[in-house]
């Protein structure tokens, strides 16, 4: 967190310095972000994968702070690295299955997909160079603060805020609907000759 604040301080518009320190910080955090991301997708140990992702999110929070998005940076740490990743950890613990080592299937498909992604990047990357012909504007002093963003959230984005509440409600229903078992269903399980249900306790734990 100390590091985060230092980073924020250094790129604060009022104290822009010509030194290379912010750039070095940027490289460090970028390395954390990309390194964490790459580790995430190549880990076989699930808990380690989740932890790598947490590292990525911390790095991203620092990067956000460099962009003067202090509120979002804090949110990133709280919601993402905190709440969402806890959810992931939880599910990983419940399922508790590491990927069994076996050869990859559909190699050709995966290669075609990889080529597509590389091609996408080749189309996109050069364009980002000239993406900002107008240059960077100087933000106001309270740019990115809680007060500033909160003001927008509860005025211009009030509708969006309410819409998100419906979204979260749907997420809650999803968790309830999918994880809950009706007693009635358990009784009729044999009758329907379906796959057998998980033991009650496991399901209770999963939500």
């Amino acid at each position, binding site marked *: 967190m100390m590091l985060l604040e230092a980073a924020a301080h250094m*790129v604060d518009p009022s104290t822009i310095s010509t030194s290379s320190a912010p*750039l070095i910080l*940027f490289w460090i955090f970028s390395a954390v*972000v*990309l390194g964490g991301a790459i580790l*995430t*997708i190549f*880990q076989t140990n*699930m808990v380690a994968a*989740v932890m790598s*992702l947490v590292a*990525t999110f911390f790095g*991203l929070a620092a*990067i956000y702070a460099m962009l*003067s*998005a202090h509120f*979002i940076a804090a949110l990133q740490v709280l*919601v*993402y690295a905190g709440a*969402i990743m806890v959810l*992931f950890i939880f*599910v*990983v613990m419940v*399922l508790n*299955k590491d*990927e069994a080592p076996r050869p*990859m*299937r559909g190699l050709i498909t*995966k290669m075609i*997909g*990889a080529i597509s*992604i590389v091609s*996408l*990047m080749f189309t*996109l*990357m050069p364009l*980002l160079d000239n*993406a900002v012909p*107008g240059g*960077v*504007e100087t*933000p106001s002093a309270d*740019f*990115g603060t809680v007060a*500033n*963003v909160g003001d*927008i*959230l509860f005025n211009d*984005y009030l509708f969006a805020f309410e819409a*998100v509440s419906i*979204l*979260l409600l749907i*997420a809650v229903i*999803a*968790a309830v609907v999918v*994880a809950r078992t009706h007693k009635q269903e358990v009784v009729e399980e044999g009758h329907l000759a379906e*796959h057998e249900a*998980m033991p009650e306790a496991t*399901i209770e734990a999963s*939500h």
Partner: protein
Amino acid sequence: MIPPTYFLYLAALLFAVGAFGVILRRNAIIMLMSIELMLNAANLTILTFGRIHADPHAHAFAFMVIAVAAAEAAVGLAILVGIFRNRRNVNIDELTLMKY
């Protein structure tokens, strides 16, 4: 000062890594995490452009995206639990009851 393009590059690379994760890994949890990476890449792009335009609305947008990502993760994990309950594993390449 850091050129804003760097942030955009970082976001693009993060997006690519996320996309790689989705197509390479068969474990559905990792795929979900990779999708989170892609969403974060988009978020970073939004915030960078918000900084460039000095527009705090971008922050509100990013806020919404974080909330959506949370909801999406919850729904995804719920479906995952449902899958696990039926089959006892979460390998996406074994989910081939339906094809053609």
